[in-house]
């Protein structure tokens, strides 16, 4: 188990290395996914490797001249990577227009990062449940299929798409099993380790990730955890980027244990399965408009974040909810407040942490999380 966990950790530590290596080995093309909703299956079906472009820990240097310090750290870091040439090996970047920051920055990258081979914005409806949105989504996904076909210089058949959907669904189910095990045996795996596993899955071929997950899950099933008096909590948010691992570490150091999450590099990534009984394009579009986790950047009035997180907390028997907002992520600020107003009647303790690329003082985070956990312990 330790060995596998180390491997996930190594992949997660150097985000683009695996894809670069894959490209050298196979001679095939790599597609970078920016933003929240790029349909990876489509590129996978063309024999390409879709990987998620995540933030990098290094200081932001070049991007400062183009993107204000009062924009989210994710986008500043991605712009910096683009300007530094880190993304030049990627054959095409698909940038999903999940918010205005990403919309404008995509254009900034296009204008200034001369080494970028191709960067393509896509727009998916914000009001996901309208009739118009359905047609629009189908059109946009068809456009992605054409794009993938051009990139791979081959056509994508319905069978190709279905096989990719199956591979991705299998992957989703394996990750769901991992989460089930964490709910059943709190503390069996640390929040940081789970984050590494999901992060690695965003950076490598799903088949290989599946092959690593299966023995890990088996080992976990056979493992027991000692009873402890840690406070079970769930963590939500951190859009577009990995939730800062030190936050997760501190949370578990001060007496909490993460029993479930609604993080972007977490359950949000695999929560929505694609219906294998429908035609592939319809199924993929349906997975978008019927996405399971409520998204702060989308509009779906009937899918409330407060209900979703309350259910998640109940299912995992969690005693507190921690929201993590990437500083300057405007949509999330609103959605957090609506969530906070929505859970008032449930009397469940909640706490907000804002993270910044440049980091916030761990000592401060520690004091605050400690008092939050202690207040639940009562």
């Amino acid at each position: 188990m330790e060995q596998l966990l180390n491997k996930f950790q190594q992949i997660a530590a150097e985000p683009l290395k695996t894809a670069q290596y894959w490209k050298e080995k196979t001679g095939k093309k790599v597609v970078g996914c920016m933003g929240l909703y790029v349909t990876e299956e489509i590129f996978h079906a063309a024999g390409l490797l879709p990987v998620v472009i995540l933030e990098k820990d290094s200081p932001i240097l070049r991007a400062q001249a183009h993107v204000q310090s009062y924009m989210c750290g994710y986008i500043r870091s991605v712009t910096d990577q683009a300007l530094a040439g880190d993304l030049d090996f990627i054959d095409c970047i698909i940038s999903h227009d999940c918010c205005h920051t990403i919309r404008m920055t995509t254009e900034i990258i296009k204008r200034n990062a001369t080494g970028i081979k191709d960067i393509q914005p896509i727009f998916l409806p914000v009001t996901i449940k309208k009739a118009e949105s359905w047609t629009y989504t189908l059109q946009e996904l068809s456009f992605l299929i054409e794009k993938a076909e051009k990139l791979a210089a081959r056509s994508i058949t319905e069978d190709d798409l279905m096989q990719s959907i199956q591979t991705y669904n299998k992957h989703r189910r394996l990750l769901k099993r991992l989460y089930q095990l964490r709910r059943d045996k709190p503390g069996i795996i640390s929040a940081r380790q789970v984050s590494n596993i999901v992060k690695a899955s965003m950076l490598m071929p799903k088949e290989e990730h599946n092959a690593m997950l299966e023995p890990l899950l088996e080992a976990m099933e056979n493992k027991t955890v000692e009873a402890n008096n840690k406070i079970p909590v769930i963590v939500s948010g951190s859009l577009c980027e990995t939730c800062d691992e030190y936050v997760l570490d501190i949370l578990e150091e001060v007496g909490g244990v993460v029993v479930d999450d609604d993080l972007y590099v977490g359950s949000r990534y695999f929560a929505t399965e694609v219906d294998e009984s429908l035609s592939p394009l319809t199924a993929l579009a349906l997975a978008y408009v019927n996405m399971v986790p409520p998204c702060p950047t989308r509009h779906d009035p009937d899918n409330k974040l407060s209900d979703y997180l309350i259910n998640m907390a109940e299912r995992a028997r969690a005693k507190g909810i921690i929201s993590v907002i990437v500083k300057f992520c405007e949509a999330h600020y609103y959605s957090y407040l609506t969530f906070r107003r929505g859970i008032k009647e449930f009397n469940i303790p909640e706490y907000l942490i804002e993270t910044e690329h440049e980091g916030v003082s761990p000592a401060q985070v520690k004091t605050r999380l400690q008092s939050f956990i202690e207040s639940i312990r009562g």
Partner: protein
Amino acid sequence: MSNEKKIVNRVKCTANISGLMDNFYKDMFDDNKGPLCWCVGACPYEMFSAANVRRFQTENHAARISTRQEQAMFIEVAEAEGLSENVCSYAKINIGFALMMARGEEDKIPERYRLPKPDMIFALNTCPTMIQWCDMLSDIFKVPKFVVDAAYIYDENNWDRNVEYVKSQLYDFVRFLEKHTGQPFDWARLNEIVYLMKQIAVEWRAARELCKNVPTPASFLDALIAMGPKNTVRDEASLAFYKDFHNEVAQRAKDGIGVLEQEKYRIMWRGNFPWHKLGTLSRMLAKYDAVLISGVYGLGTYGDHAIDNILPDGFDLSDPLRTIAAEHCCRSYTRRFDWKMDHEFRRHIEEFSIDAVIIHSPRTCRPWALTTYDMAREVEEKYKLPVLVLEVDHTDPNYFHDAQVETRIKALLETIKK
């Protein structure tokens, strides 16, 4: 450079604006004029008129509060409720205002800003903030909402598809309005108002173009004050006002009457405006014989595309909903930033004898802030003009420090070689 107070010779008829807008807001209390909708964003106000629904624009209301520098209280209320300081300051003001109303604290609100509670909320997301903001209002007042999603047109070849996308939602909105008013939608009235908007656009555009004259007969600040009726009221009285505005500006141009006694520096503005510092900025610039000639902000609404055929759609009176949809699709935020917005920006620099450019990068508005660094570089490199990027805010008072801004403006003017 002297330090005495300089006279700013404003376009006289703009003095009528405050009365016009006061009356408009007074009407919000008139129950005979149909239900009340609070509108977030640049909305299809013509449709509300045709449905006999009272409405106002929440940003305009927030700006109104800010021009008298009374916004801080509302911002504090919103932030105390848990809304981040980094959210658009218009939204903070309006949500703070809404929270106070919902809590029955109306008596703390200065009388001139008071409003009735909404019967419904509407948003059109030319900026993504608007949907979330609309949701929050609907949650605070527990009233129905209608949201129109305007797509991002990253490729001009997608123009038709995107206009149809918006138009089809506007059709649904007609049904929503009919349901909530219990009355049939007045299509003839809609046509009248769209035609009215076309006439307003002609007057407005003509008046603006006259600012190419030296000295300029009107300033950007005159335009900012004058844009309220065009952007939110949209009725016969608005057209009458823009005719007066155009006539007066034309007369001034003919007589060689400028905004300043001595017009030494002609400055162009880009971005939304710090409403709370309208007077301060005007005086600050006048002190050094500088005037804001034109600006890319809020001026193109119902205008440029229709007249210049910059965009594929002009006014099409046979299809008013498509015209309205096209109008919303051609907003700078819904299009690639190097397309329309830059087009107007560059045209102004080239045609209005500009000496320097001030670019506003607001701290709480991502749509106006992003790309400004690149634009500043382009102005310097391509047009060899001095640029000042002002990182303040459209209404949040915390980011504007008079002395600091004045020092920077002075430094900008000193680099202009005359």
